[in-house]
């Protein structure tokens, strides 16, 4: 899977789960302030990403530090690279 494909899968999964407008989903978008997620949504974000990529997310500290969509992209890309 190319980097672009990974990013596309992240964005489409999150867009579906949280009913986001793809136009708002820029890498700089703050997931709380710009995309309107809250702390409860991060629980479901982890489930969605685990389902989309078939991996387990155990880095709770790293998840807590996520602020932007770009942070999610980097976090997932790193895990995908580690696993491959």
């Amino acid at each position, binding site marked *: 899977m190319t980097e672009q494909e990974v990013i596309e899968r992240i964005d489409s999964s999150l867009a579906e*789960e*949280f*009913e986001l407008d793809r136009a708002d989903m820029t890498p700089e978008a703050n997931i709380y302030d710009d995309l309107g997620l809250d702390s*409860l*949504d991060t*629980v*479901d974000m*982890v*489930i969605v990403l685990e389902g989309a990529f078939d991996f387990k997310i155990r880095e709770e500290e790293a998840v807590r530090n996520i602020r932007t969509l770009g942070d999610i992209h980097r976090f997932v890309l790193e895990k995908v690279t580690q696993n491959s």
Partner: protein
Amino acid sequence: MHRVAITGIGIISCLGNDLNSVGLALREGRSGVVVDPERVELGFRSPLTGQIRDFDFSVLSRKQRKSMPDFAVWAYACAAEALAMAGLTAADIQNDQTGLIYGCDSSCIAAVEQVDTLREKKETKAIGSGQIFRSMTSSITMNLNTLFQTRGACWSLSSACSSGGHAIGQAADLIRLGRQERVLCGGAQEINWESMCSFDGLGAFSARVDEPAAASRPFDADRDGLVPGGGAATVVLERYDLAQKRGATILGELLGYGFSSDGGQLSVPSEDGISRAMRMALDQSGLMAAEIDYLCAHATSTPAGDAAEAINICKVFGPKTPPISSLKSMTGHELWMSGASQVVYSTIMAQQGFIAANINYQQPDSALPELNIIRETILHPPTKVVCNSAGFGGTNSALVLAFS
């Protein structure tokens, strides 16, 4: 003491998802009872149930629905309808003087789903963020509070099948005492086999599977049990003077609320319990029993329950009772919602100019005292109404309504 006006109603019911459809079904005596094939497969003694059809869940976003079981979404939809009818805007209700009180005594499906997920996934985080809020019996009021942003009373009330009746009664009391200016109140009931399987196991449901529409037959000699149903019902109660002042259309007045408990058995109602609630409600209303021109009975179509209510009714009204119908003959028993839906149904009838019949009442039960059961739709509106509801454990509610 303040007077209490009814200024808005809304309902999602097996008879329809709006006031006109529900009114038409009540007038025509149409049943909403069906056979659920899944219950047949699962070995239910009775697969009969009320069913909500064609409900549009997109009234709320997926994110908003994540913390809501289906019955809380139904409650939202009928509350929005009731608020629109009352002409109350967001600004009118986002204050300390507006409350939410709903009757609810289970949220079974969410509890089942979260346990199933954990057993499968072996980690709690896989359950997701919504189930904790979906699984609480206060799910309706906590969700409606975040959606409507009211700031006053906010709680759910659990008293089995009288939950909805007590919720409306308590809401009226808060207004009467000057502690709230308006309360959205009502009740909601889930409809899924998971929430009904243990009740089915008691053998209390009608087994008249070949004739679903004839299965619920309160007070009839051939009644053989209740049919479970559900949905959601909302009533907007307001301080009468304030409703008048803002020019609201006043649909009716809640004149009295009475409550009692049996201090008796878990599942068999007593011969005086609900009569004490009716007397208390009548006392508060200032009406005499003889002035009541419609009694919306609790009667669920069980042999023992209907018999007990019949005795209780005669204790209050004597041998000449007001016209009586149990609308459960059409809706089945809406359980936690039923005490609230009776208020909505009665208000619909007052608005639309009729009194619904107790369908399927064909053969009077010779073991019961004589009651004036309505066999055919009466083509004039009720004006002074008593709504009864009673729950497991012997907890009773009676409401007195007036329409002009």
